[in-house]
């Protein structure tokens, strides 16, 4: 099975949620897909799709089920943490915006289907230090908070706008402020692209979000500000439609979303089939300053795919070749790394 075929298989399993009828999967196909599902955080979702098939009693299905159980508990523990984090920050007069993770997990049929690890909080740059201090206090250190200095993906909008469109959710009796639905869908799409479409579950997030859009979803606001980003988000929703079968007919973006650049689907499938380690879990490049063994493989691993390269260089989603964008992205990254070199060298010596 080629990587693209493997990616197609993953897409087929995930998409079973939105297709009528039981998922038709052979034991061999499950054997191919299960390790990837486990590696990429999609095991619980995979279990949901096969638990009503004749594969449900196989050892591999059992592994997926175990992951589902573990994720269910993990999410429950994280929910406690999130409530504690918000209560703690609010007691200090701080009110962050939360995104991704639990915010999208709660839209899944069961929260355990969407594992998440850290608590993504987005704060104004001018308040970042206050948040950092608050999260360094005793009792707060055990929380796994990913504190974002601003909201990079949404920085074509003001933080005032983001707050104005934000909404409150209740978790264990604590109010949790999150992005508005429009901003959050935009965040999910742009994050998926920026990370090079690495995780099928991130596209599943978008599918779940689109599938649960309320009738009063403000498409004008969703598509406002930077038009290139707006086009990227439409294409991401189109990708969810194309690969996962999410219905977009009747949506104002449907026409563009059904007309995707020709490299987008194959790139995504190949990435999924490769099962690469997401950016955040790679070994630090700085580590190779001390021990260069493996640096070639690490560089090869960092060769940007067409999606992350296009987004990284702020390129258009059209049918032009992607190589120039990939080269451009490499130059950008290398420049950023070179700028850090003096600091890294002094740190490693």
């Amino acid at each position: 099975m080629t990587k693209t075929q493997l990616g197609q298989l993953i897409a087929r399993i995930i998409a079973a949620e939105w297709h009528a009828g039981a998922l038709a999967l052979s034991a061999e196909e499950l054997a191919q897909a299960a390790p990837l599902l486990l590696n990429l955080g999609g095991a619980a979702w995979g279990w949901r799709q096969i638990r009503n098939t004749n594969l449900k009693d196989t050892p591999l299905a059992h592994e997926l089920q175990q992951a589902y159980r573990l994720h269910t508990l993990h999410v429950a523990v994280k929910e406690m943490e999130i409530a504690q984090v918000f209560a703690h920050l609010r007691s200090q007069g701080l009110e962050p915006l939360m995104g991704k993770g639990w915010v999208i997990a709660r839209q899944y049929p069961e929260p355990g289907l969407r594992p998440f690890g850290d608590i993504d909080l987005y704060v104004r740059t001018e308040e970042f230090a206050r948040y950092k201090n608050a999260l360094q206090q005793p009792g707060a250190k055990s929380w796994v908070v990913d504190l974002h200095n601003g909201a990079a993906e949404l920085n074509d909008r003001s933080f005032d706008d983001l707050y104005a469109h934000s909404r409150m959710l209740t978790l264990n009796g604590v109010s949790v402020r999150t992005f508005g639905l429009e901003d959050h869908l935009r965040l999910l799409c742009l994050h998926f692209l920026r990370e090079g479409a690495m995780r099928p579950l991130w596209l599943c997030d978008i599918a779940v979000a689109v599938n649960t859009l309320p009738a009063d979803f403000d498409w004008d606001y969703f598509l406002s500000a930077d038009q290139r980003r707006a086009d990227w988000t439409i294409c991401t929703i189109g990708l969810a439609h194309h690969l996962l079968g999410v219905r977009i007919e009747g949506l104002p973006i449907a026409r563009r979303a059904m007309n995707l650049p020709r490299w987008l689907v194959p790139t995504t499938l190949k990435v999924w089939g490769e099962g690469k380690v997401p950016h955040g879990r790679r070994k630090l490049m700085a580590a190779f300053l001390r021990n260069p063994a493996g640096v070639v493989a690490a560089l090869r691993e960092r060769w940007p795919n067409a999606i992350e390269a296009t987004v990284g260089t702020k390129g258009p989603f059209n049918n032009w070749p992607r190589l120039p964008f990939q080269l451009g992205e490499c130059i950008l990254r290398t420049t950023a790394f070179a700028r850090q070199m003096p600091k890294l060298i002094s740190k490693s010596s």
Partner: protein
Amino acid sequence: MSGQSLPIGGVDVRPRARTNDLVIRELPDEELVYDLKTHNACCLNKSAAMVWKHCDGQLTISEIQQLLSRELHPEIDEDWVCQALRQLSQKNLLEAPVLIEKFSRRQAMRKLGRAAVLAPLITAIIVPTAQAGNTCVGQACSPSGINGVDCPCTRCCGREGSPTSSAPRVCQLFQALPPTNPCNADCMCLSDNCIRPPDPNPWTCA
């Protein structure tokens, strides 16, 4: 859990379910329990969950058996309940463990007769081959290399209890790591938070 064990057989044995430091999630056919103290996760099948639910510190084993014989299956006897209590004790899910005379599972099944299909069962939740999403929990690991961690499944490597305890290092659900270690979804840093320096570097404890 208190150190006192309850003897089996007496009419005064009234097992009480532990409630502190546990995260519990009910699913349609089972109950999932995560122990915040030991970081162990287990799954109670429907029968075990029902026994556990009736362990309120008021009911005797005999009374629990009578309740379950009405709710679950008429052939459920005290041995069946004891089988569940023994497992609950082993998993630290009772305030005080109930000491139960050892008998094999096969013996127990034979005694249970038709009710054997409803045998109480508590299993640990472990995902052996996965490499992400908290899935190497419990596996032995050792710190090494420039990144300071070498978990068999690329996860964090730490000790039961606190990071400074003398317990052997294992991969854990929740992990504390010192500064400069790469961190991710399931790691905590000792000194600060998991932050992301400018690309292409990954998340790092700062």
